[in-house]
């Protein structure tokens, strides 16, 4: 892994960004949750937003989604809706909604009034279900799906409206390692195929590492952003976390481990 010389670029100049935050600050009930946060996500880019619990990841998302006003700074975001996959979605098994219906709600679920089914919409939903590999369980109730299956359906729900920006809050939180890797691979593929800008948060970035183009690192409300090579280094991460963190390479895979007890055999 190339060790860049400590330059922590905030916003790359002259980039065609799908999302750009500049000097964003947010205070919630007197406490500074975000302090001068700047980063950008370009189309076709897969960006991980990493940080410990309480570092402000969800706050960043709420600002990006327009659910929370930024106290200072500017936010440039797509005018059309943003594809969003929230954290820890739990749906009751009795909810009478097939995976297919949830994807359909992704087209125009926010509109008032009812709409009769049409062939074009059905085809669009079908195409999206195939794209995320959810065909096998498209007719199952959403509440009965496994964590990985539900993530695929939620991604289809988020993307069927053809947004330019996809935001996923802790998509790997409830997944086992295999499902987690599959979801990350899926999002990376869709990002490149569809020219999406994808922003995923995680507190454990190991699963994101092989696919991440850029990293936004949050700690204590401040952000450092850069290419993976610039940020994923033992010294940079340890300083951010204020805790010993080591970046190891094992059989060609980069791993991040924390704590003093780490030993490499």
């Amino acid at each position, binding site marked *: 892994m190339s060790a860049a010389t400590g330059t922590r670029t905030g916003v790359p100049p002259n980039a065609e960004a799908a999302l750009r935050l500049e000097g964003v600050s947010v205070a919630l009930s007197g406490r500074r949750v975000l302090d001068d946060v700047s980063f950008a996500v370009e189309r076709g880019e897969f960006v991980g937003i990493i940080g410990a619990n309480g570092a402000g990841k969800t706050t960043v998302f709420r600002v990006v989604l327009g*659910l929370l006003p930024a106290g200072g700074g500017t936010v440039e975001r797509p005018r059309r809706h943003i594809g969003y996959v929230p954290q820890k979605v739990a749906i009751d098994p*009795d909810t009478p909604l097939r995976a297919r*219906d949830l994807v359909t*709600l992704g087209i*125009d679920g926010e509109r008032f*009034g009812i709409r009769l089914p049409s062939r074009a919409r059905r085809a669009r939903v079908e195409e999206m279900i195939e794209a995320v590999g959810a065909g096998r369980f498209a*007719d199952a109730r959403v509440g009965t799906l496994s964590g990985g299956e539900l993530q695929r359906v939620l991604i289809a729900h988020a993307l069927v409206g053809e947004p330019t920006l996809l935001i996923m809050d802790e998509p790997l939180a409830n997944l086992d390692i295999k499902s987690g890797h599959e979801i990350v691979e899926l999002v990376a593929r869709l990002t490149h195929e569809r020219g999406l800008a994808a922003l995923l948060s995680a507190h454990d970035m190991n699963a994101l590492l092989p696919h991440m183009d850029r990293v936004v690192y949050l700690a204590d409300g401040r952000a450092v952003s850069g290419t993976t090579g610039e940020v994923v280094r033992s010294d940079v991460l340890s300083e951010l976390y204020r805790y010993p963190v080591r970046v190891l390479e094992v059989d060609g895979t980069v791993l991040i481990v924390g704590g003093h007890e780490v030993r490499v055999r």
Partner: protein
Amino acid sequence: MTGFFQSGPVHVALAAGAVTAVVSGVVGVLVVVRGQSFAGHALGDLGTLGGSGAFLAQVSPLWGFVGVGAVVAGAMELFGVQRRRGRDVATGVVLGAALGVSALLLYLDTTSTSTAGATVTVLFGSLFAASPASVPEMAGLGALGLVALAVVYRPLLLSSVHPELASARGVPVRSVAFGFLVLVGVTVSLTSMVVGTILSPALLVGPAACALRVSRRPPVAMVVAAGVGLAATWAGVALAYASYRWPPSHSGWPISFFIVAIVFVAFLAVELPSRIRRRRAPGGA
């Protein structure tokens, strides 16, 4: 005694019951999906206040139910009765106080008319005694309710699945929830006309609960719930009519008893097999 199909009160009962069964089936599905059965129950209890007040003012109990139901539903949403802590406090304080006032009004009803009719009508319904004029009123309210539901349907469904998902798409989640609860208030006032305030949640939630066991899509569940409600209501009317020949007093059993009993049996009929199946399934939860 005239025949079943020649009886005026039977016509009124069948028509009022049909309107109510359809509206409460459709609305009830979303009540259950949103986990607002408790709100429906509270609205029924509070409807007692409106019904007994209307009796005292000598207007149709329907308007008492609707007036109190819509206002209280709005207040409940504003004070956040959905949140568990708020719910506990509201149950203890507000529902208790409202039922206390209802007790007073029912007492006054009884003393002013010197019959126990008001209490039975408000609490348990007396569909055979409903006035023919209430049918078009109920049908109008029901139609209004269904149109309102059609308007908010998709944003409501989306915010029922996940409120944040909906608000990220620009759905005014709180306004939609507020509007829906007012709609539940109106629906409960219809069911209160049929089975009384105490049993009204059974007709709102019961058929919907049956429907959710057997259907995987909201529109299908709504049709099934309306069908179960309609079957229960009409069968209840027929049995109540027949019960005028039954012991002990040959004065007829209450319609509400039959309706609620049929809904309960229907629920057991769909619930028990699925429970047994789940228990038999290897490693099933």
